[in-house]
């Protein structure tokens, strides 16, 4: 068996290296992708264009505007005198927030009353709108507090009472909450999955289309040997890919790696075998390359969203949450983030490792079984 499998693997390696252009894409694309996507995720907003209508035009209204400016998230782009301008600027997307300070703002406050400030937010981007609303609430809270403290001081009361608590916050693993550190390891995992599936999804279907599958069948190779032979050369490409991506993450993006690099690569290998196995399985159940591509689309595209790559799994409805257990990427994401940022070892990661092991053995078993049936 050994020499038979060995020669088959050699043949597969040759075939792989003959396709230089394919190989180049497989090796270079992940690096380019990582470089691009590492930068895009950011949860805070900067330079939100806003329009202001100040009807009061007093020292207090100007101080309020100043505090909006000082918050650092807003770009005070437009000043208008007429409320009808709001809809023009928001409709065209030139402004995302409109703030209206009413007449008598200062007068009301000085006389001990309470004044309303109107904020109109473009809700068509709901996530930005929530963040903007949060910023505005905070700005308003501190302005309001300042006025209140002033009043209490004048009345001779102790103003400190009004801020009676102190949150002592410490952030572990990623003290500056850099989203880069969160995204880069995840994209690393995502790309590894994509490349692994693409590498093998054509391997058997191509033999079918070229009519060489019959030749393979008459050789004494057993189905599992065939699957192994197809798998091993692709693993080597996936390993090189992950080394590249790892280097980009650590050297270029400077993502700190707190855990064991060896563990990361061992688990990465298991994960990539899962991906390669899915590709192989697609290849055994497809009649031609087009089918393989479409089946691949069907399997791969839901993974982006369901893996927790971008959107938190805990917020999904429970039926969808149940689905996520069938997404291998889900487990590997926890592993990558855990090893990179938390520096945790196998003791904590075991819960993610065994589902991955089951996954890869089931999918490879299915491929072999499916292939055997073909032969008979």
């Amino acid at each position, binding site marked *: 068996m050994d020499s038979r499998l060995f020669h088959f693997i050699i043949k597969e390696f040759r075939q792989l290296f003959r396709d230089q252009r394919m190989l180049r*894409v497989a090796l270079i694309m992940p690096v380019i992708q990582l470089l691009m996507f590492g930068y895009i995720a950011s949860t805070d907003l900067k330079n939100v264009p806003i329009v202001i209508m100040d009807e009061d035009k007093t020292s207090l209204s100007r101080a309020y505007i100043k505090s909006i400016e000082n918050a650092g998230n807003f770009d005070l782009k437009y000043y208008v005198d007429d409320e009808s301008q709001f809809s023009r600027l928001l409709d065209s997307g030139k402004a995302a927030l409109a703030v209206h300070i009413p007449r008598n703002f200062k007068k009301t406050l000085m006389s001990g009353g*309470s004044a309303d400030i109107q904020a109109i937010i473009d809700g068509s981007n709901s996530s930005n709108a929530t963040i903007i609303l949060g910023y505005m609430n905070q700005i308003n809270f501190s302005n309001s507090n300042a006025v209140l403290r002033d009043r209490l001081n004048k009345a001779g009361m102790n103003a400190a009472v009004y801020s009676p608590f102190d949150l002592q916050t410490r952030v572990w693993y990623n003290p500056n909450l850099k989203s880069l550190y969160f995204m880069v390891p995840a994209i690393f995992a995502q790309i590894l999955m994509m490349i692994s599936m*693409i590498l093998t999804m054509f391997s058997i279907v191509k033999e079918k289309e070229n009519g060489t599958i019959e030749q393979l069948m008459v050789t004494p190779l057993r189905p599992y040997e065939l699957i192994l032979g197809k798998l091993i050369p692709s693993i080597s490409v996936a390993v090189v890919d992950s080394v590249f991506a790892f280097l980009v993450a650590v050297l270029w993006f400077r993502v700190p790696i707190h855990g064991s690099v060896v563990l990361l690569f061992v688990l990465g290998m298991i994960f990539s075998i899962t991906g390669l196995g899915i590709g192989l399985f697609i290849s055994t159940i497809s009649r031609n390359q*087009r089918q393989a591509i479409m089946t691949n689309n069907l399997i791969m595209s839901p993974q982006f969203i369901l893996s927790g790559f971008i*959107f938190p799994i805990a917020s999904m409805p429970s039926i*969808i949450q149940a689905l996520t257990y069938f997404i291998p990427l889900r487990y590997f994401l926890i592993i990558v983030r855990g090893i990179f940022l938390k520096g945790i070892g196998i003791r904590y990661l075991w819960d993610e490792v065994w589902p991955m092991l089951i996954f890869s053995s089931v999918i490879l078993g299915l491929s072999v079984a499916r292939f055997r049936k073909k032969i008979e």
Partner: protein
Amino acid sequence: MIKHIYAIMKKEFIHLIRDPRSLIISIFLPVILLFIYGYSVSFDVRNIPLAILDDSKTAQSRQLIDKFVHTGYFTIVEELRSGTQFHDALDSGRAKVVINIPSDFAKNIQRNKKVAIQVLLDGSDPIAASSALSYINGIAQQYFSGLLVAKGANPINLVSRIWYNENLRSLNFYIPGLISSILMMLAATLTSLTIVSEKEQGTMEALIASPIRKNELMIGKILPYVIIAFWDVIFVTVIGRYWFLVPIKGSITLMLFCSCIFLTGALAIGLLFSTIAKTSQEAMQLALLTTMLPSILLSGMVFPIENMPRVIQLVTYLVPARYFLRIMRGIFLKGVGISYLWGDIIPLTIFSMILMWLCIRAFKKRID
């Protein structure tokens, strides 16, 4: 010319019909994806696993803890007994937030002294961590202002109104974006095999020998897919409107018109790869890698383009989903018309035209 294009179209349709599985997937994939995505796409962070160390164990501290649970943002997964357990709770991932209420909590409240609450956050997920922090802040603020006698209420009230999407329903925001991302993902892979498979199967010679011109071939190859993908647009829009109840405030005709332009461009990307690639695998690889992640990450569907670094912002101009997404959101949510949208429609049209032209240019009517 029409006759030639028709002949190619017919041939392409026969290819499609002969392979029912691919056809069914290409028609239903967007629908499946829309269902899955529609239910799971949300940045609203809920049920954050929280571990609590209550050193105070008083009525007041329990009141505060109750507040955390009632909001729905947090789920208490663990009641810790000592500070030594903090590490284990966060390391294992069981909890993402640990809150420690000090033993002098109730006493300090009674004496009108400032109380300190210790919060530990798992920063490895910065999105969840920053939301958790702002929730905690809000909840604590509420709790303490409830404790104070309302002496003059808030001097300045912020009266906020949200336009276009009054309840900030994130579905309303994501569904129009999803439609464009899903279509982009599908479109490029749909056409990525059309030319290269002719090369691989050796039928290219027959095509070259025929009197069909390059542009006729390309148009004939792309039209059947425009039809399929257009069908997808209608399908997904209907589901978005009637299942997910996303309002369409603008003109549907304009939307369908723009989707035709967009689809031509997106399909032309696949066609271009198919023309320049030597093998199906290469074509497929190029199509998948250049469209799958970019259509989600660089289109502005999830992350706002304005926040990206300059260089990456420039790259987004090459992603047709970027323009289409803005058009879709404009039409769906704002109900704006062509006078506001031409800034996206024109680049989209130019983009599609250039891509078609590139396809025709790249195709060589000879065998090397």
